[in-house]
């Protein structure tokens, strides 16, 4: 038996209070039944790791957590597994484990995952964590289980950013992907829009109107400080990171109109203009391979999505169907483009398959904005309006699983899903 040891470190920041909570409203997708047996000794942590693991897996829409009755003796990662018994409980997969406290006060969780159908162990791992990071440890366990069972990386350990508006107060917040452990980076009496995570996940660029005009800032998470990166005469907005994290594409009106420029991510050096039109060119987004910049332009008379070489050049039009297609977001694998399309008076998220030009509208709401791919490409986080309130919603990229993320603390908008953190 060999366990991998991982250490989890997190930077603490002030707690923001209100949290997102998540409901699954998705219809019947075939869900793998999994038994996550409460870990022996996890009561000492004060947080139920297995409850979080189960909730994470269920939230993906791909798993159904089975109720596990009290078992005697209580199994742990070293117990022999009775495959027949778990099969009769209708489990396709099983997680068992234990938690122990080390002399230094940290906890060590060890667990093992089994494929009950194939009657085979799928792997084991151990994590060290402090009491404060119990949730993070649970998300790591869920990511391990998810990856072993689906073959894709899980996103339970990732974070999301979004903006909350409460009266005339705006907060840029970050939270775990399940909406817990929310904290704010910036609180302002003026609007904040367009947060975007840097590719390594340590910085967030955003637009703040605190100076009565839009200015682009970069917030450094570990140092909890920020810097102005674009504050030219006129408006500065729509930041987008290059995949190497060194360059930010922004939209400036310094030469009139709205045009796309590149600036260094640290704000140094001159701006380089890469779009050249008398029209609006905005909402730049790099493709994951860094070769292209997708953007919105009304050069053809209505707002449509185009792309150009990331160093500038002749744009090619990407969307043709409909008279209002905006907010392009290339998928992490580069195969799909998510964007917002207007059909009648409805604004909905559509996916364009870039290989065959097929378009699929994946939402049934009518005021969708700001789609953001999970780093594994499986889910898309977006802002919409329900009951007159701004809420976040997540939709699987095949459109079959939907989650609402209700929030009691105000209007939530401008979601941005952060990258994988190693």
């Amino acid at each position, binding site marked *: 038996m060999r366990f991998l040891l991982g250490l989890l470190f997190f930077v603490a920041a002030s707690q923001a209070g209100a949290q997102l909570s998540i409901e699954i409203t998705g219809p019947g997708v075939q869900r793998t039944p999994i038994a996550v047996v409460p870990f022996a000794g996890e009561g000492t942590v004060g947080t139920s790791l297995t409850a979080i693991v189960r909730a994470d897996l269920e939230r993906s829409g791909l798993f159904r957590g089975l109720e596990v009755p009290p078992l005697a003796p209580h199994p742990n990662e070293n117990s022999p597994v009775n495959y027949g018994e778990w099969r009769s409980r209708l489990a396709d997969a099983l997680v068992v484990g234990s938690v122990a406290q080390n002399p230094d006060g940290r906890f060590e969780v060890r667990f093992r995952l089994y494929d009950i159908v194939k009657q085979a162990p799928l792997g084991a791992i151990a994590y060290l964590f402090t009491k404060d990071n119990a949730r993070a440890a649970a998300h790591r366990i869920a990511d391990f289980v998810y990856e072993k069972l689906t073959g894709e990386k899980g996103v339970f350990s990732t974070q999301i950013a979004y903006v909350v508006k409460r009266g005339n107060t705006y907060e840029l917040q970050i939270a775990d992907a399940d909406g817990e452990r929310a904290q704010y980076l910036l609180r302002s009496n003026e609007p904040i*829009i367009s947060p975007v995570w840097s590719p390594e996940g340590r910085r967030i660029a955003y637009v703040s109107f605190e100076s009565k*005009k*839009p200015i682009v800032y970069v917030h450094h998470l570990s140092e909890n400080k920020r810097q102005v990166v674009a504050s030219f005469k006129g408006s500065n*907005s729509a930041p987008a990171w290059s995949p190497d994290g060194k360059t930010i594409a922004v939209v400036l*009106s310094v030469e009139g*109109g709205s045009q796309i420029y590149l600036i260094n991510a640290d704000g140094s050096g001159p701006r380089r203009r890469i779009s050249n039109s008398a029209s609006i060119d905005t909402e730049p987004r790099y493709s994951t391979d860094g070769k292209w910049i997708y953007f919105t332009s009304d050069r053809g008379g209505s707002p449509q999505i185009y792309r150009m070489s990331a160093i500038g050049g002749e744009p090619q039009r990407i969307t043709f169907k409909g008279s209002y297609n905006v*907010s392009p977001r290339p998928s992490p694998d580069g195969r799909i483009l998510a964007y917002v399309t207007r059909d009648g008076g409805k604004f909905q998220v559509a996916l364009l398959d870039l290989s065959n030009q097929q378009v699929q509208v994946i939402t049934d709401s009518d005021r969708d904005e700001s789609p953001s791919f999970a780093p594994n490409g499986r889910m898309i986080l977006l802002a919409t309006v329900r009951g007159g309130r701004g809420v976040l919603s997540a939709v699987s990229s095949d459109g079959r699983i939907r989650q609402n993320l209700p929030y009691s603390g105000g209007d939530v908008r401008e979601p941005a899903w952060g990258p994988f953190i190693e």
Partner: protein
Amino acid sequence: MRAIIIVTALLLAAGCQTTPEDQAAAGVEDRSKPGAGKPGAQVQPVERPKVAAVDPASALKDPASILSKRSIYYDYDKFDVRDEYRGLVEAHAKYLRENPKARMLIQGNTDERGSREYNVSLGQRRSDGVKRMLILLGAREDQIESVSLGEEKPQADGQNEGSWSKNRRSDILYSGEY
């Protein structure tokens, strides 16, 4: 109402400096009362100023001065300044011409429909249009900054044309006001 604005603009354009007292004497004060909008109610002459020196900036806040009018409203998906706001823009251009040290911020705004960032660009198109007009009327480029607040600062919160028409606007601010 529109006639009042034009008359006031003409008087201002003629170089009359007015004080609030003068405006009251001219009877323009009660333009908000019923009947004030009738033709003929606005054609009384403004008296000659009793005070010789008046801070020109005071006109910016004088409710009787067209210079206190700071918002230009737009039709849906339109960016051109409607004729009814021409007098307003001309008055501000004249103010900038006559006060070379004055600085102005024009904030373009849109209604809430559609992408926030695309709306920043649409609002910019509105404020850029006002800026261009002011420069054509003799203001200096370096006196004016045109920016956009997109859909972020609505005047009205409703989701109907009545509210949206209040939110499609350009707002004029002078230094000290932003």
